[in-house]
């Protein structure tokens, strides 16, 4: 009980944080209709940071993704929506190299991959979060976030044990950067807690912090707001936008809550049964008949389902 109320206090304290951070930053893109070229240069926008060409993926006889094309421009917030089982998470897993697509390839920053090398993902400037929490429960919040910089570590274990060489400097750097991110996402109060002991919403935010600490060029968020309350969702949306504005990070986002997605993203791709059925700005998607049929829904007059 005291734990829960403590967590609640945390939430309330931090509701306005993203706006504070966003203020004064070059965030001309607050309204999604403006366009797709934020802090990056025009040259960046010409070549997409990420593009998928003809991606097909099947598990046995089940087709998870069929002939998906997708381009993500530098600096935009790109949402992927769709009903359950539409292949959204599969798509993120293909982009991050967890799955190897059966067909097609992923082009990242001009280089084409049939399977993105997961081990080198961080070096390529790509970070991601997971649909189900994937924190390191046995580490503190600070160490979880600092682990997002582990890919940079050059010192070996002997140097670390003896405290010689570059190990000390590396540790100092990663801790100070982790602290900055914790402050940015308003997590400083839980800095030294074990990650596994935090309430769900905060764990989601720690995962965002772990992905952000490396200041990735491409951030893949797999349902960052799943299971959150409305106020937590808008808070998280604020953090995502602030992160994009502050680090000029390109964001690919999977989300169920259409309201949040419409307000947050620059362009939206809609998947249904592994196929892309729409790819446009939020306003266009909202009025697309196929999207409405597949996902958004209309006030149903219960055509065939009578009596169910």
């Amino acid at each position, binding site marked *: 009980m005291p734990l829960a109320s403590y967590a609640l206090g945390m939430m309330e304290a931090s509701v306005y944080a993203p706006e504070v951070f966003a203020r004064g930053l070059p965030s001309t893109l607050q309204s999604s209709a403006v366009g797709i070229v934020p802090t990056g240069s025009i040259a960046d926008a010409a070549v997409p940071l990420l593009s998928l060409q003809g991606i097909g993926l099947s598990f046995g006889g089940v087709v998870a993704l069929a002939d998906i094309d997708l381009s993500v421009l530098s600096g935009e917030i790109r949402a992927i929506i769709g009903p359950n089982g539409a292949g959204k998470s599969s798509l993120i897993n293909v982009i991050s190299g967890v799955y190897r697509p059966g067909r097609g390839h992923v082009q990242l920053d001009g280089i084409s991959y049939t399977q993105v090398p997961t081990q080198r993902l961080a070096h390529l400037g790509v970070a991601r979060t997971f649909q189900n929490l994937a*924190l*390191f429960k046995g580490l503190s919040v600070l160490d979880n976030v600092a682990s997002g910089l582990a890919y940079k570590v050059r010192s070996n274990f002997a140097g670390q044990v003896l405290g010689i060489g570059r190990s000390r400097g590396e540790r100092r750097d990663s801790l100070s950067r982790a602290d900055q991110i914790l402050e940015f996402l308003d997590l400083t109060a839980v800095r030294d807690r074990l990650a596994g002991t935090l309430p769900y919403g905060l764990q989601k935010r720690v995962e965002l912090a772990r992905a952000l600490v490396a200041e990735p060029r491409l951030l893949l968020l797999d349902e960052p707001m799943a299971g959150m309350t409305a106020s937590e969702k808008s808070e998280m949306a604020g953090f995502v936008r602030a992160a994009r504005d502050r680090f000029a990070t390109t964001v690919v986002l999977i989300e169920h809550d259409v309201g949040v997605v419409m307000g947050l993203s620059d362009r939206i791709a809609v998947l249904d049964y592994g196929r892309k059925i729409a790819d446009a700005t939020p306003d266009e998607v909202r009025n697309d008949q196929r999207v409405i049929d597949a996902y958004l829904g209309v006030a149903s007059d219960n055509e065939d389902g009578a009596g169910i």
Partner: protein
Amino acid sequence: MTAITDEFSSAPVLPKWIAPVLLLAFAYGVVPLIGSSYLFEAILLPFLALSLAGVGLNILTGYAGQVSLGSAAFMAAGAFAAYNFYLRVEGLPLIGSIVLAGIVAAAIGIVFGLPSLRLKGFYLAVSTLAAQFFVQWALTKFSWFSNDSASGVIDAPKLLISGFAFDGAVGRYLFALTVVSILTFLAYRLVSSQTGRNFIAIRDNETAARIIGIPVLKTKLLAFAISSFIIGVAGVIWAFAYLRTVEPDGFDLDRSFQILFIIIIGGLASIRGAFFGAALIVVFPLALSRLGGFLLGDVFDSGVLDMSQRIVLGALIILFLILEPDGLVALWDRVRRRLLFAWQST
């Protein structure tokens, strides 16, 4: 609850190094003066060797999350390697042969750690059994390892370091204590380093660890290597300082289980836990035999003792897994906090 936690944080916290330093001062300064030969031979020497083996296994299983049932094999590899290096390499000092023995154990650990790149959990545990059976078989089969002794038994050399002989029970105790202290300190440094945090990351979520760029394969093999090195040196202490004569059968599967129980009872992912667990495992049979003899007299012979040991130990492990999954360490910390709180409120 919150109020109590606040109370603790305001308490004067002693620096973390105080307790180990006081303990070491006691172990070096007081114990050799007051201890009986029985204390050293039957309790402290096996305790030190098993503690070190527990520290080694805890790095692999507790921190890196890779279950291993091959600990006794790595102990045997260390013991027999040190024996052979010392025997066959002219002029190699004892310390040199111990370090080389650790490296041999580490190399074997890496080889038998390779399945961990594919296997997890119970499947990995079964594949580490291969190490257990293979090493024991090889040491029995090829008499070269035991210098062609008819029974396969090796006799430990004199513990001689730069002209100073660690003779008698006290000498061997000091030798073991020194080796265990140094390696435990290094292990402590390791688990609180970046590498140690990488171990925990791989244990807690391997996919996430790979995605954020932790070299998973390399780190797993490193965990096997370091763990096996420490367990190998523990084997040297077991053979050279404690038993003085060992045979391959002394490092059987029961010993591997014993070390696994030590870290489960003591506390996974805790350096102190290995010492708590080892203390219980070593002292418990002795206490049980005294108690049984006292209560039941002649009825309590060695057969009954052996049987009751297994029963009580088995029950204890089940109880620990259910009631205190974090082991004796967690129990100890809780009791200490209560006492501190009670002491403060008076």
